């Protein structure tokens, strides 16, 4: 997969693409005269919640069949985007995967936990996500580092599986060219897990994950 496909996009670009152009900012003078109005607040999952939550699963088969949201939750504009791409995604078209990944940027909210995320498609069934560990977490005790790596890997895998109809995600945590964790998550296995009750490190090991941290 070309490297450019995995570049993170600015949040404003995504908002423009999917929800329309935001209103122009008020002139500085006018703003100064009014109480500042909060227009946007970025939210990131706290570390302890990282693997316990994930993005909403995109229902591509529903999106294929219906031009308007069937779940009553997804915005019509976003649904329309899914509807347009559903046919190609369900055919396993990797170019469509790329477009969807760029538009939805599923790992964008994990920015505080990794320096970068690279997503590659090995096939329509299997993705590989490689994240460069954040120095802020890698300096901790070994147990904590393992927990951190497994937590990010699990969350990234869950988010990717929620977005794309892949069966497996190979997640690798790296630092300065060295692989610290390599673990493959299988959709069928993840389906059975109650994420609120697991320890990410134990789970990663149970999935055959290998730590070298």
């Amino acid at each position, binding site marked *: 997969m070309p490297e450019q496909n995995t570049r993170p996009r600015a949040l404003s670009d995504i908002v423009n693409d999917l929800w329309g152009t935001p209103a122009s900012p008020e002139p500085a003078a006018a703003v100064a005269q009014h109480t500042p109005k909060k227009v946007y607040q970025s939210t990131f999952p706290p570390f302890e919640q990282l693997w316990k939550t994930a993005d909403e699963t995109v229902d591509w088969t529903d999106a294929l069949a219906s031009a308007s949201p069937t779940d009553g939750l997804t915005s019509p504009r976003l649904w329309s985007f899914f509807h347009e791409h559903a046919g190609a995604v369900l055919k*396993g078209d990797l170019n469509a995967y790329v477009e969807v990944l760029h538009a939805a940027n599923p790992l964008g909210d994990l920015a505080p936990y990794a320096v970068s995320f690279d997503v590659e498609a090995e096939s329509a069934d299997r993705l590989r996500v490689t994240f460069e560990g954040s120095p802020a977490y890698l300096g901790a005790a070994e147990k904590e580092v393992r927990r951190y790596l497994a937590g990010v890997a699990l969350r990234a895998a869950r988010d990717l599986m929620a977005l794309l109809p892949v069966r497996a995600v190979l997640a690798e945590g790296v630092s300065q060219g060295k692989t610290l964790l390599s673990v493959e998550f299988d959709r069928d296995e993840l389906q059975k897990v109650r994420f609120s009750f697991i320890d990410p490190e134990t789970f990663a090991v149970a999935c055959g994950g290998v730590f070298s941290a």
Partner: protein
Amino acid sequence: MRLLLFCAIISPMEPCKKKVTHMEALVPKWHRELELFSTVKPLLILEGNVLDQYRYPVTGSIPIDELAPLPKYLHGFLSDSGYDAVTFYSNLMGFMNPFAPACLDHYARLTGVKAEGGVIPAEFKGNKADTAPNIIRRAMSQRQSATATVLELASHYIVTPERMDQQDVNSFNLLLQAALSAATVRTPQGRRQNLLILLVNKLNDLPAWFYLNNPLCKTIRLEAPDREERKRLISGSAFATFFDSTVYRTDMPFYEAHPEELERLREKFVGLTEGLTFTELDAMRRLSKQERTPIRDLCQVVDLYKYGIRENPWATLSMDSLRHAREDFEKRIKGQGAALERTLDVVKRAVTGMNGLSSSSTAKPKGVLFFAGPTGTGKTETAKALAEKLFGDESACIRFDMSEYGQSHSDQKLMGAPPGYVGYEAGGQLTNAVKKNPFAILLFDEIEKAHPSILDKFLQILEDGRLTDGQGHTVYFSETIIIFTSNLGIYVKDEFGRRQPNVTMDMDYNEVESRVRGAIDEYFKLELGRPEILNRIGENVVVFDFIRREAGEAILRAQVDKIVRRMEEQKRIHIDITDDAYSTLREAALRDLSNGGRGIGNQVESLLINPLSRWLFDHEVLADAQVVLEGFDLAARPPCVCCRLKEEDCHA
């Protein structure tokens, strides 16, 4: 790049939704009746499946093919037809329109009442001017705007039609007057009559005088979706919505390459879902998605939905146990090697899913066998052994003695009596049994004794794999094995009508098989005149051989061992049979093998079991003993055994 990508999206795999015109769309009968009669009758009663959702069949304010609850559907239909003041009334809430609140405000202005918080509160009965029937009457008689008032859950406004008080009567009277005073209004869609629509579960929930012989009123029946509608629900891009995205992406290429498989799957699903409502079908769709059902297992979702979690014995059948089935069967059924091999072939075909490959219906039974041969040769025993092997329990072999179904009306015993007849509530013996246990072996013993009208029902079961009972419930035989047994071909009638043996013990198996098969063919083709039944059975006629000497000895040995073992286990009485005694018993028991294994059993009972029981009782040997059986006195009447207690273990 982008252009190419969008080409891919509208590639043949999933075509863009084609615009469907009114004429092209599949419009259900009740919708067409609604269109027709809403222009000529001011009072419509929609009766039946009113709590269901319906697929919106025409281009309009609701997207075509969208499933909508009936009120939403009606709002879409009425708005699109030119009614600009549509409201829904329930006796608990009052007048509302959750789909277009502006409609309610308009309705309120027209009738001179006030809407508060999206509701016009009004009781159904009472003496006030603003009861619901009074408001409806005002709406019906005005000429400014086309109004339509839908009375939801109208079955529940009164306790029962027989127990109405005067106020109830007055309220319905006012509704009648409202219908009488219905005005016609010009709309952009043409002239429209103000309309009153009642939604009821059953027509007789309303007082009969309200609708009977009422020229203002038209009753429209809403049924569960028919075959075509169910097929439409699972055709085109809607098919994808039954599956999880990953499953669909992985499985679909196979079905794109084999469209005939997909069509077969759809047909089976459509057949299996007969009688289910749209709401149930939608729940099944979501269940399939949630369970991540593979496309090939779509029809199993119907079972999951109908019966809950139930192990499918066919899916869990161990190949290893089948591999050794022949040896296991031979422990129970002696001297029938060829018949067992043929039987197991059919079962293996069922397990490997190769049954029905040559036919169009996949809903057919898993296998059909026709066991023929002399009496007492192990036909019923084979069926029971098969049930134990496949379903782990002999009781999964459900036996019907067809000599009990010799009358022309006997089919009612099997399939259930029609409405109004005695026994209607009980249902049919066969349909009930399969409903209760769809994974079973159905054994129809002595099929030639059944009335020919029953054979027609079997024809349907063998061909379509389903049967509808007297109560209208469809029962599916797709998980069953059907076995017919028959003694046809053992005797034939000579030119004087006398029974003559067609096969004898001195013939070898090949000759027995050939003669019996010939006689069966003749019976179905010439005597019964129903060759089509034989065609459905195909090559699955299994002829059981006579019990010959060697098999007879094995049967006798098995029966005697069983008796000895049981005495040991249950009474702790050990029985030794001397060689001489066993030899005497063998000669007597195997003297006449014309009655097969059953004849040997009868001999064992009269020569061994009865005399031995008598001896034990007379000698007060009831437990904990060792008995030596030294001989038989077969000349005595009844026959006796010669036994003695072993000295050291003599029971006091």
